[in-house]
């Protein structure tokens, strides 16, 4: 199970990197969404995957009998999912506003902040 998911995580990373190398903001944002999910899955796999064994410690013992799934990474992912979701929402609105204001979703043509024909500084003292 872990091996399968590890491969899936790899595919997710590959897809997200491919998308993020695009010039168009919507693809970049999709890439970031996939990247967030890739990271969440990665941490999830780090915590061992065991559906059948409940992480309950037997009475009298201080550790569980056999290996169980570690609940901490799942708690971490819960935090990360919320964060990445809210950031994705913000980015989508920002990209839409950028399309409205700048009239393009091509990052190469977004040159308002860094104009291509900017004057050189004066060479006098």
């Amino acid at each position, binding site marked *: 199970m872990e091996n399968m998911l590890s491969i899936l995580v790899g595919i997710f990373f590959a897809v997200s990197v491919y998308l*993020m190398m695009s010039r168009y*903001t919507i693809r*970049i*944002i999709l890439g*970031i969404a996939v*990247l*967030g999910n890739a*990271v969440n899955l*990665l*941490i999830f796999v*780090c915590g061992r995957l065991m559906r059948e064994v409940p992480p309950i410690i037997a*009475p*009298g013992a201080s550790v569980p009998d056999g290996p169980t799934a570690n609940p*901490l*990474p799942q708690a*971490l992912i819960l*935090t*990360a999912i919320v*964060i*990445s979701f*809210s*950031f994705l929402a*913000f*980015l989508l609105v*920002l*990209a839409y*506003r*950028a399309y409205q*204001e*700048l009239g393009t979703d091509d*990052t190469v043509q*977004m*040159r*308002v*902040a*860094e104009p291509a024909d*900017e*004057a*050189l*500084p*004066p060479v*006098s*003292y």
Partner: protein
Amino acid sequence: MAGNAEHAVDFAAGMLVAPTALADWLIIAPSILTIMGGASILMVRERAKLHGYMACTYLTLLVIIDLLLLRRVSLEGPITMTMGRWLPPFGISLTVDAFGALMATIAAIVALAVCVYSLVDITVAGRRFGFYPFLMLLMTGVTGSFLTGDIFNMYVWFEVMLISSFGLLILGGERIQIDGAMKYAILNLMATTLFLIATGFLYGAIGSLNMADIAVTLRKMPKGEAPMATIAALYFLAFAMKAAAFPVNFWLPASYHTPKIVVSAIFAGLLTKVGVYALIRTMVLLMPESRAMLSDIIAWVAALTMLLGALGALAQNDVRRLFGYLVIGGIGSVLVGVAVGTENAITGAILYAVNSILVMTALYLALGILMRMNGGKYNLAELGGGYKASSWLSILFLVLTFAACGLPPFSGFWPKFMLVEASLKENYGWLAMAVLVSGFITTVAMGRVWAHAFWRGGPIGTEDGKEAAPLYQLAGSVRARVFAPVSVLVLLITAIGVFPLPVVSIAQSGATTLINPDRYVEAVFGAARAQQEMRAKEHGSTEPGGDHGEQAEPAAHKEGTH
């Protein structure tokens, strides 16, 4: 349930029983203050006039709390507070050492200065859009990152900082801001995601998120047990991106000149420095072996970052973007300390980070004053006549120029001196050379700014010795509010330059703790260990009682299952 009433739960097995000392609440106080402060400002959204004064009050309190914390840490060494009183490493520990407390204090001072300046710079519309709540939340994230002792917790503070910085960056919603924010948002989000990836791997390899625990485990771990250098490289990439180091710096010059000048000022002061702080924390405290392995790469990145910063500054006509490149150059100098890695080098790096926070914020604010006087011009060719308009401003600006270039007698000199000395001692002659050369180029670039903006009578085209039309004079009430913060920052910069000893000794004790974290670890685990020993002793003396307790547990369990 009846069983529990008869046999009290043994809290001491998993929790700290002693209540947190009142003084230790100082560690969490900055976060509580800034979050509550931001929320309370939001509650009086309609009464925009109040916002600024409320924020200034909260930030003054924050400065006081951070100063108390700094005093306590420098007297007693690192202190810790574990959330929920769970035994570390299971609870989230907030741990403060001299490095964190120093950075938090300087950050709070800078934020207060920016807040006072913003009283005249942020209009009612900007206040209604939420400038002050965002500012308070930004400070929550920044201070939280400086004070935490848990690496995942640090990630969360990073995100708090990031989302509030997005809000500040697009405040006003002009075209240029949207453009800058696009690049800033996407690249910074990628950097924090990389940070999360590295943390996921680290947890997978070590099984802990508590920094003190990780530091101990990694120092004991035999070589080759886990691919630590890979994880360290990921952390380096993530934090270098946040700090705008050379190959991944492009978001900074694209965005820092777009928002209001107060926002630029606080960004230039704090955001990249938080990245550098996290870099020093992970590389030096957590993974010293991997840092040693990567030191040559870090050295190259440092040298190229410094040179790029200096040359970029030389090539800019827009003074705000020029300052953006100065921020990058400062990051390079801090990285020199990380690359060399001796105690003196780390001390120099910490001091340079402090210097860079103060100087960059003050520079942007000083430029803001000049732009108020000349009607919003920021291109080098259009500036001029500053000396005639305000000789005090030209003095302040000259001091900042000196401090930014690392010339004595201001706060930029000592860290550069220490960095060069430490590099030479460790046979990094070329790195020392890069520090000096980049300092020289920065001096040329900044000298030109001063000469153009203040020395010349007017914009390019004005004849030598002649004066162009004079600049505007500021109204009295405005003048006090814009000059006071810059003057205080410049005073601080001069004071640190002339009497460096107090700050140097704090930075030195911070560096010592980073390199030899015994006291840091003791602060986190000391109380827990003392409690465990006490418990073991009690169990030893009352052996039957202990047995009784263990026997009782299954009984209670059976009762529950009925």
